[in-house]
């Protein structure tokens, strides 16, 4: 069998495949010694060492804190930062919403700004005359399906801080003492169901459903919403029935999340187990 030369296309792909295997090893193992990496990638230590030296020169791998250790390099942080700076949830959402053929309502994107949910993107489809919610429209964080989603999927410490911030800033009258408990209960419902809904809150006269959009770190980034269902669907939505509009919205939210680098494979188990409770 003829040995491949350096100009051989197969040689290039082979080198890149081995390089990627080493990067994946370091991603999985964290800072590691050559023996651990070569065992993981099933290559001799000598060739792993040569490859690591090359990757160190590129900056994709750095020497670790301890002697003989290697870790993913600062160049990876720089490259990831360049990508993340370009990821625009609005344009990704716009692209995904426009592909929702056959739907007959308005698709909107809400993000949280302090203690309000703000509409930053809206697309209307089909024969619907619904032109709500408008861009710039906002709701307090205590009201509406998008707010419920943006609050429910916050990590615990940020959730608590936001609740406290809102309580002391909003004129809540008799609701003050029960606000935290109601928010916790709503968050439990929404995370279990995987979406939120409201009637007459986000869009007057209509039922709105909202689903979470996550960034690559798994943090809640925005809420995708669909408005245009008749209020008569409320019982079905509440029961978690298999409505095509709900499924379509959740699928759209997943696609937007994937556009931001969120991986459902690693987290599918967690999301599925929550919805089965």
């Amino acid at each position, binding site marked *: 069998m003829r040995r491949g030369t350096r100009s051989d296309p197969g040689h*290039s792909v082979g*080198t*890149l495949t081995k390089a*990627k295997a080493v990067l994946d090893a370091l991603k999985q193992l964290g800072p590691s010694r050559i023996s651990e990496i070569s065992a993981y990638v099933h290559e001799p230590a000598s060739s792993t060492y040569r490859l690591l030296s090359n990757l160190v020169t*590129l900056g994709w791998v750095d020497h670790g804190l301890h002697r003989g250790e290697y870790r993913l390099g*600062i160049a990876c942080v720089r490259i990831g930062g360049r990508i993340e700076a370009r990821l625009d949830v609005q344009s990704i959402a716009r692209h995904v919403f426009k592909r929702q053929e056959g739907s007959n309502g308005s698709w909107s994107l809400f993000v949280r700004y302090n203690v309000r949910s703000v509409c930053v993107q809206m697309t209307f489809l089909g024969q619907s005359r619904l032109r709500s919610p408008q861009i710039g429209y906002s709701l307090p964080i205590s009201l509406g399906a998008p707010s419920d989603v943006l609050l429910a999927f916050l990590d615990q410490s940020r959730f608590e801080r936001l609740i406290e911030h809102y309580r002391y800033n909003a004129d809540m009258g008799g609701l003050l003492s029960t606000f935290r408990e109601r928010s916790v209960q709503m968050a439990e419902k929404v995370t279990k169901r995987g979406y939120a809904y409201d009637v007459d809150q986000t869009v007057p006269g209509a039922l709105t459903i909202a689903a979470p959009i996550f960034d690559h770190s798994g943090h809640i980034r925005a809420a995708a919403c669909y408005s245009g269902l008749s209020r008569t669907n409320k019982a079905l939505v509440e029961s978690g029935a298999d409505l095509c509009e709900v499924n379509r919205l959740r699928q759209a939210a997943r696609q937007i999340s994937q556009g931001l680098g969120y991986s459902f494979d690693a987290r599918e188990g967690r999301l599925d187990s929550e919805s089965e409770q």
Partner: protein
Amino acid sequence: MRVSSKASDQEPTGALFKAGKIIDILADNNGIGPAEVAVVSGIPRSSAYRILDGLVQVGLVKANQDDTYSLSLSWLDLSDVARSSLTEWPKAYDLLAELTTLTGQTSFLTVISGFETVCVECAQGQSFDALILRPGGTLPFFAGAAGRVCLAYSDEQIQEDYLQQAPFEGYNENSLVTSDALCADIKQIQKRGFAISNEDITIGVASIGVPIFSQSNGRVVGALSTGGFVDAMMPRCEELAGQLKVYVNRLGAGRPLDSLSE
């Protein structure tokens, strides 16, 4: 820790060297075609096609429907793990959060990579939305408090190599872009012990930065900085620099001689 502009005396093997160049080009230019990649990189077109296809096969690059190429989102996971692998400064985020609570301004931990600084951690303050630096974001050595303080405390050879590339393309009329201006700035920073960035990147935004050092060889490896609106920052330069130095020592990243003398 520091990755110099030439991390080893050997070039990587041909395929990896070309792949590195192509990845860097795609990092700066999203969605470009192979012909353009070849022109910008100086790599023969046939090689550019081959390497791009190889990078697509291993998942580091994606081929778009319009026959252009972009970096794959898999780099985001690599970036996250790379950040978490920086174990020199355990509890860095907690300390940055504490510093931000104290000052009210956003705090940044940046690390040198070549002739740039890369933000690896930050804690949001009041004016976060106005600041361009985010985790993964980079600033060149000639701009910003973090960049300029790293330049000022780098070895003379590194300074010389960098300044040979001047003049640089500045962000605005306040940016220091010439070799003379940066040399004068280096002297001032060394005398003062910290860098002041007064709207040299973003109009209306200022930052203060102090160096952080490797405890094994005493060389500068990055910076701790704080940034915010210029009216809030400039009257407090000395105070903020003082706070930053305290937290550098708490990170365990002060100049080895300084930390011993305390």
